[in-house]
């Protein structure tokens, strides 16, 4: 469609257009290339023997029967890897927490890898893994924050890491309550549990390592290939140029593919030992136990306010369950929660404390939103509880407390030295949401329906949420173990006038190849179809940070724009020289370069790009290969997407079944590069957020046995289980990058759960229900309603 517009002589802007994706063709016809699709000659298959105990000493591992089975090449335990370091990421100060590549003496969660079986194919590996006999001496199990902290109260209580002498890692200590809280006319206290979830990308974890004499090549389903390459070279003590990491097509990540898993280090080690490529590809059940979980946070909140609904002070203690082998990202989740606990509200005094708690469970790390869904949940539930306490409209309480549009940059009360909200218009987003919902009419409808016993109970829930995205300013990602917080982009123009853009991010469904080509196409003037964007291979891009923290457009897109501007400037100089005109008189389009006033005289992009390699054709001061620009883009600040979501539920008065009747979203992500892609991200995030609120919960029993380790019991919803979404938008561009774009990848997951729970609690307000933890299952709702029998 943009081509047609171009042919009519007009140039339609690519940025802002719903351009269809470059990524689709291969994926649509089954020619995608995911890790398990790749077959290397001679490759072996590795699979883990996993602990069936949540906490135990390993007494013995008997591999005799398994080693003799067909196709088995080797079976290893930690003793075979005594020369290997621990998995990288945590600082030296917490050395006892450094995770070995296989369990060493003790297993700490069900699923903890104890041994690795290497066989000719996955069928043989599965048979042999079953035949390995492990003898355990069980230890007391601490499967939750509560049990782990309770053990701390007893000097003889279980310490999951005896050398650490504690299960609790205080990050921000608690301070006494501020006078503004103690003196507030009214106070509320509530504990909010943010339920443990699993990211469940449809593609489970997989990696292939091929260590040849010339070096190591790793294909990994991962969100940050350079990060993995950098750490692999340190881990094995090899130079960077001897290690190549490729993230081919990646089947979803949602944060669970940023962390380092044992197989990323074991597969190369085994490949080196055996001289053959080694593939590891998990089953779903393995992935449910092994891939890091998300959320699993408890927030103890106290809020002081007055009769107008104005908040005077907020106090939050965040307890983050970091699981059994704390991950650097997992350790930082609560920091983000702390920063973002005030949300979109001007709260004069905010006190936050954070304690990371070690438990005998799967480690917890980033999952879409990574600490911010927890923050938006606690503050948005708190605002509703205040409204409920005062008998005020929840929208009114929000308007009373919003940060206003003229108050940016706004220092967050939780960390005024370091966290500055960039831009936003929170009242306008709520105005737009209310308009789209028909809010006032809904209130009237609710009164009528709830008075009619034959109608489902109706609930209306709002979520005025804030996100922190566009990771990030210098220092922000280094804290999570990354090389930097910048992002890199390189643009090269080939002699035929086409552009190759190499980006340091590593997408897994976001459509960056399309969006980046839109940005580059507009900024350079080159045809969208003449731009090829590539990522995910350390061979083609010197260094990159990766895709996480909703940063690709904000940080990498900005890099691409800057590189594009450089290319365009140089190309114009060359064209001006060729056309014997002044650079300021050159007009650029996908057709090429023309002199203003004499449109018939042109040079194509191919002409100019060829000339760029031919010094005799170039102006003074320019040399061959000049149409090549690399930018390492540093951004001055995070960006802060925001929005207002509304949920309307109907609750069956007898069974407690919750049905979402409408779900309305208003997003502010600043400048929108591609509305189709932006909306797709919102839909996906909202679906995961609704699912957390109603369906998903990864649970353990008192012995640390997982109860939801398959998709039969861990309830990822299908199309028939979710509503459709009504999407709206407001736009407040960000000043932190040249695009004005804030990012949107995690927004849906941040904003969606509170709207659902607020709606459920609203529907049940007649029963005196003040709060309900997620997921709001029918049985929970039934209990909250007083277990009605429906026999009246």
């Amino acid at each position: 469609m943009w081509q047609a517009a171009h042919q009519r002589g007009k140039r339609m802007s690519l940025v802002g257009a719903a351009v269809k994706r470059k990524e689709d063709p291969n994926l649509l016809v089954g020619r995608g290339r995911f890790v398990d699709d790749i077959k290397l000659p001679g490759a072996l298959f590795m699979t883990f023997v996993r602990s069936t105990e949540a906490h135990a000493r390993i007494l013995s591992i008997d591999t005799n029967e398994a080693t003799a089975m067909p196709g088995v090449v080797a079976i290893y335990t930690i003793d075979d890897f005594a020369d290997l370091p621990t998995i990288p990421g945590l600082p030296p100060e917490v050395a006892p927490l450094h995770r070995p590549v296989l369990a060493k003496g003790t297993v700490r969660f069900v699923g903890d890898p104890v041994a690795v079986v290497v066989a000719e194919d996955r069928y043989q590996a599965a048979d042999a893994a079953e035949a390995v006999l492990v003898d355990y001496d069980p230890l007391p199990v601490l499967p939750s924050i509560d049990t782990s902290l309770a053990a701390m109260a007893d000097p003889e209580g279980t310490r999951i890491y005896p050398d650490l002498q504690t299960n609790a890692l205080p990050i921000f200590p608690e301070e006494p309550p501020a006078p503004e809280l103690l003196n507030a006319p009214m106070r509320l206290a509530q504990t909010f549990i943010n339920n443990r979830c699993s990211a469940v990308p449809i593609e489970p974890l997989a990696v292939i390592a091929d260590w040849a004499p010339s070096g190591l090549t790793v294909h990994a389903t991962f969100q940050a290939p350079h990060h993995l390459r950098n750490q692999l070279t340190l881990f094995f003590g090899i130079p960077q140029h001897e290690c190549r990491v490729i993230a081919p097509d990646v089947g979803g990540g949602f944060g669970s593919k940023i962390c380092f898993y044992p197989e990323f280090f074991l597969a190369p080690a085994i490949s080196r030992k055996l001289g053959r490529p080694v593939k590891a590809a998990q089953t779903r059940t393995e992935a449910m136990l092994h891939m890091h979980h998300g959320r699993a946070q408890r927030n103890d909140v106290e809020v002081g306010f007055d009769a107008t609904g104005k908040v005077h002070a907020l106090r939050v203690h965040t307890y983050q369950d970091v699981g059994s082998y704390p991950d650097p990202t997992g350790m930082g989740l609560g920091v983000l929660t702390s920063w973002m606990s005030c949300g979109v509200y001007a709260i004069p005094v905010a006190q936050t404390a954070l304690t990371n708690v070690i438990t005998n469970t799967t480690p917890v790390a980033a999952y879409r939103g990574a600490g911010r869904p927890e923050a938006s949940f606690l503050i948005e539930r708190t605002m509703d509880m205040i409204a409920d306490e005062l008998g005020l409209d929840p929208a009114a309480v929000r308007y009373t407390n919003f940060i206003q549009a003229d108050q940016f940059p706004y220092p967050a009360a939780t960390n005024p030295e370091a966290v500055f909200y960039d831009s936003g218009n929170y009242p306008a987003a709520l105005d737009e949401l209310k308009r789209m919902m028909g809010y006032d009419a809904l209130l009237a409808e609710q009164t009528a329906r709830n008075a009619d016993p034959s109608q489902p109970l109706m609930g209306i829930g709002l979520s005025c949420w804030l996100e922190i995205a566009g990771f990030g300013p210098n220092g922000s990602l280094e804290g999570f173990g990354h090389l930097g917080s910048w992002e890199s982009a390189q643009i090269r123009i080939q002699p035929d006038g086409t552009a190759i853009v190499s980006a340091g991010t590593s997408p897994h469904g976001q459509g960056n190849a399309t969006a980046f080509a839109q940005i580059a196409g507009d900024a350079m003037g080159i045809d969208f179809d003449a731009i090829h964007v590539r990522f995910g291979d350390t061979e083609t891009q010197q260094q990159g940070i990766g895709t996480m923290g909703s940063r690709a457009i904000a940080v990498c897109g900005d890099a691409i724009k800057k590189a594009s501007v450089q290319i365009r400037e140089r190309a114009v100089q060359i064209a001006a020289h060729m056309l014997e005109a002044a650079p300021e008189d050159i007009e650029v389009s996908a057709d090429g370069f023309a002199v203003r006033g004499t449109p018939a005289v042109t040079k194509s992009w191919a002409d100019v790009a060829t000339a760029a390699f031919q010094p005799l054709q170039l102006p003074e001061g320019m040399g061959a290969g000049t149409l090549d620009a690399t930018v390492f883009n540093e951004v001055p600040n995070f960006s802060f997407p925001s929005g207002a979501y509304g949920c309307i539920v109907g609750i069956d008065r007898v069974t407690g079944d919750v049905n979402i009747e409408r779900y309305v979203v208003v997003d502010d992500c600043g400048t929108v590069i591609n509305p189709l892609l932006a909306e797709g991200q919102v839909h996906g995030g909202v679906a995961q957020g609704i699912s957390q609120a109603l369906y998903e919960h990864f649970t353990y029993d008192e012995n640390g046995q997982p109860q939801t380790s398959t998709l039969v019991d861990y309830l990822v919803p299908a199309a028939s289980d979710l509503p459709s979404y009504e999407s709206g938008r407001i736009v407040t561009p960000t000043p932190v990058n040249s695009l004005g774009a804030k990012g949107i990848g995690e927004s849906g997951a941040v904003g969606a759960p509170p709207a659902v729970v607020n709606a459920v609690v609203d529907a049940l307000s007649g029963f005196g229900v003040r709060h309900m933890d997620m997921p709001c299952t029918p049985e929970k709702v039934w209990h909250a309603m007083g277990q009605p029998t429906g026999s009246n």
Partner: protein
Amino acid sequence: MTEVNISVNGAHTSAEVAPRTLLVHYLREELGLTGTHVGCDTSNCGACTVHLDGQAVKSCTVLAVQADGFAVTTIEGLQPAEGMDYHPVQQGFHECHGLQCGYCTPGMVMACVALLDENPHPTEVEIRTSLEGNLCRCTGYQMIVDSVLWAAEHAPAK
């Protein structure tokens, strides 16, 4: 080992397989048709959906020996419609952004093709109900529904 003869995307294939070989592994490992994906081990996710004897099935829950003597169509076997680059369902997914990471897509497309074969003009509710056996983690499903509606509207009349 058992011999199987399965017509896949119109081509005759034959191999000796262990009877426990899942059809999805026969397609992926034996034939190298890696478009069909594995996403779970409890028959929930539908990423492995192919057509067996003209009907959508979960190839992870069918043994290759059960498909012996029958015809299988995988994502690689879909044919473009006249005037389109792809089968109308694939074209619809492209028009309406029905895919993001693409991992669930082959199975999702094959399920949608089967739906439209049986019900050429489904309602939104019928589409969602028909896809209750296919999980997607990226799209939130709405654009998948839009894609099927597009395909239903634009597919050449049979």
